[in-house]
């Protein structure tokens, strides 16, 4: 692979990862925490109505996991495409 091809492949892998993570980001907060909150409130998790839980707890936990997952995956991609730092 030439340097240019390798860079393009790295960028593509990065964009694919972003697409997956941002979809989760959107679905959990805007989907489960807002748009679908009303129907979800008929279910419960612990003593929380489920929609309420996503809006005030669950989406925040998801965000934290998303960022750490991203950092871990990107560091792996950096090494795979040999663009990692010292």
């Amino acid at each position, binding site marked *: 692979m030439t340097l240019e091809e390798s860079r393009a492949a790295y960028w593509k892998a990065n964009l694919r990862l972003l697409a997956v993570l941002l979809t989760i980001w959107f679905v959990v907060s805007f989907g489960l*925490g807002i748009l679908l909150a009303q129907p979800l409130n008929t279910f419960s998790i612990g003593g929380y109505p489920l929609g309420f839980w996503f809006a005030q707890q669950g989406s925040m936990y998801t965000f934290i996991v998303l960022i750490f997952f991203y950092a871990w995956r990107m560091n792996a991609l950096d090494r795979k495409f040999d663009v990692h730092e010292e």
Partner: protein
Amino acid sequence: MDLQTLSFLVVGATFVLYIGIAIWARAGSTSEFYVAGKGVNPILNGMATAADWMSAASFISMAGLIAFLGFTGGAYLMGWTGGYVLMALLLAPYLRKFGKFTVPEFIGDRFYSKTARIVAVISLLVISITYVIGQMRGVGIAFSNILEMDLAIGLLSGMVVVFIYAVFGGMKGITYTQIAQYVIMIFAYTVPAVFISLTLTGHAFPQIGLGSTLIGEDTQLLQALDQTLMDLGFAAYTSVTGMSLLNMFLLTLALMIGTAGLPHVIIRFFTVPRVRDARKSAGFALLFIGILYTTAPAVGAMAMYNFINTVQPGPVGDPQGNVVIEERPDWMLRWERTGLLEWEDKNEDGRLQYYNDADEEFAEMAREEWGWEGNEFTTIDRDIMVLANPQIAGLPNWVIALVAAGGIAAALSTAAGLLLAISSSISHDLMKGVLTPGISERSELLSGRIAMAAAILLAGYLGLNPPGFAAEVVALAFGLAAASLFPVLMMGIFVKKMNREGAIAGMLAGLGSTLLYIFLFKGWFFLPGTNMFPDTAEYWLLGINPTGFGVIGAILNFIAAFLVMKITKEPPEHIQHLVEDVRVPRVGTS
């Protein structure tokens, strides 16, 4: 020891700590002054970022805001945390790779244009100055309401402390004080929350307590709260009401995009050594923020539950069901003195009623059946939900003193970060970048310090004489960050062909449309009475609240940028190479 003396000692001790850090962490170069020499440990930077981000509003006001909004309060929780996902995935690592000192500097270099840089500086100044007013108000609230001290003295001592560590230490001094401030703030926030959660539910973690049954009963805390609120004519706490789903959606998105575009937070990621540190640091920042943000909804709901049960200890409608005025608890007496809590015995029964008299049907029924003549709490400032918490829970005085120190830490840490963003954009972007490019590093450092000192004086003045629109402008700060800076930063990284003309057109379109929409409903430059339309849902364009309009501004920014890009010259070769370099942590060799 009485509360006053104890509070002085606790707050005084934190101030001594900040000054000690200032002496230890002086800045000797512009790199240390602007980005702490790029040598901050990523986990510590996460802590500093959390303190930088969590303002007086997060610490003092947010739980109360949620307490009165219920479910839709989630917009603030998700909005102010979800923005970190955008910042961590779309901006922070790349801007760190770029490796310069300020946000406008990236915009100026990437779009090879001094004009773009100046437009970015203007956005930054409007955003940061409006934001800093709120912090100064927070310092005032902590001093005058918790410590019951003169606001001016409190504000002045806060300014002196910030002056010492921000002017001499720059980003380096600010970073290490923010770390200390984070620890103080998170301790002050969680200790009362843990005690209240234990008292109500027996669970030490408020996040679990909020979803648990009440001690000695079979009822879930949230169910009990829903029921009591409905009995009093309000909507159930967990139900989807309060604002339209469209506006909740837009507000959440505007807060997210705005958060991601706030320059004073972005520059925190310039202080870590490597790109991978920036990624990791963003995760830790949100983790540290999350500790407070996941506690806040519990604080809000539990404080609301405690408040209602204090006012309405017996069955709703029972003549004996409400608290007797003469027997009301001490914490109510205390907050009445500050004016944050006021009541009036409208039906002269010697008891206090709290209910939803805005619901006409319910108010009519309460009048006929129970002889209630209106909600008797004429003022309940939402801030007391956090401020009065330790007293409601019957915690010792040192916890109250700690809450004061925490509120002040939250306000000062954010103020310092904002002041640095303001002063670096003046000394580095305006002076070094545009007006006097030939100045030496020493003179640039000196002008940075002078700009910082001037910004502190301005912030202090605005804190003492808050403009009447102080509350309104916070929405403006987020709307503008969303509409002006975020899209152009993102396109600078992700759209290689985005050019100077597109970026400037985009920023102006976003900034202009958002300002226009806000001014139409809030008054031109917020002058009262100059608004063109009443600020109510039936006049809003498609029902969009001005606080959520930043999203539309951001969309217009993207559209304008792409349209103009299509009809103008593509960026020069070396700029396209710059973008390619920003996209990789290290230039590969394979």
